């Protein structure tokens, strides 16, 4: 099944995972730097309305990271932290991820494949602890259907039962 298909495609290939795919117009080494170096990350991962106010990253096996986004005018900070478990520049990065206020944790496997045209195909596999947690995240698509007058609920349910 596929959900949330807008600028990126999300699929659920097995019981506990969500897979996000997106292409970028640069070679993997460059995408890798943008994803793993704080001075780059601060500039695209944060934005003026939701800046990345804490960006600590120790990108080596066993190292930890901590990101906090803080809105400049008011509450609603979002924190996420985890560890680096595999670091194979520029192809593969395995991390754990736990949001402060959302269900988790997950193991995230980021794979960057170089395409013939010099672009990079990114595949991010987010694996949750169990099916229940994964389905909960997927079911948020169903909740969205309910919240928006049910129009997407039947499709979402059909996809989930299949």
């Amino acid at each position, binding site marked *: 099944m596929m959900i949330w298909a807008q600028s990126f495609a999300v699929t659920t290939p097995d019981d506990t995972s969500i897979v996000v795919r997106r292409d970028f117009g640069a*070679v993997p080494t460059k995408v890798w730097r943008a994803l793993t170096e704080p001075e780059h990350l601060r500039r695209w991962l944060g934005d003026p309305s939701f800046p990345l106010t804490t960006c600590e990253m120790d990108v080596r096996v066993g190292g930890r990271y901590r990101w906090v986004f803080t809105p400049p005018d008011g509450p609603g900070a979002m924190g996420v932290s985890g560890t680096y478990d595999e670091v194979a520049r520029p192809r593969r990065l395995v991390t754990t991820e736990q949001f402060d206020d959302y269900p988790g944790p997950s193991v995230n496997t980021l794979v960057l494949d170089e395409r013939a045209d010099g672009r990079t195909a990114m595949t991010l596999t987010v694996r949750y*602890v169990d099916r229940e947690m994964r389905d909960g995240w997927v079911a948020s698509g169903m909740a969205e259907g309910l919240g928006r007058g049910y129009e997407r609920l039947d499709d979402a349910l059909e996809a989930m039962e299949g």
Partner: protein
Amino acid sequence: MTTLDVVPARDPLSLVFAALADPTRRAMLTRLRRGPATVGQLGEPFAMTGPAVSKHLRVLERAGLITRGRVAQARPATLAAEPMKQVAEWAEQFREFWDLRYDRLEDYLTTMADEPEDDR
């Protein structure tokens, strides 16, 4: 393979997610879209006993997804919109967040200087 420490999540969203994770409970919620229903009515499509239905309803009720009324002996269940709205808002924020971030990354990559290792 990396192993995960299972830390039981206690936030309200987790309760809703756990409640939504079960196909029987999702079917019950779908039935409740048509209006309130009793334990008997909800169990009928699944040939399920009253206690089994009640167990599912308790999970839904604890997550705030339904409310239970009191009509004589029956306690008809009614769909509650608010938690669904909260999860929907979260899902929308999550999608918007990553849509925006990936678009920003795409733009940012065009401004990054090449390094010798970027051999194209």
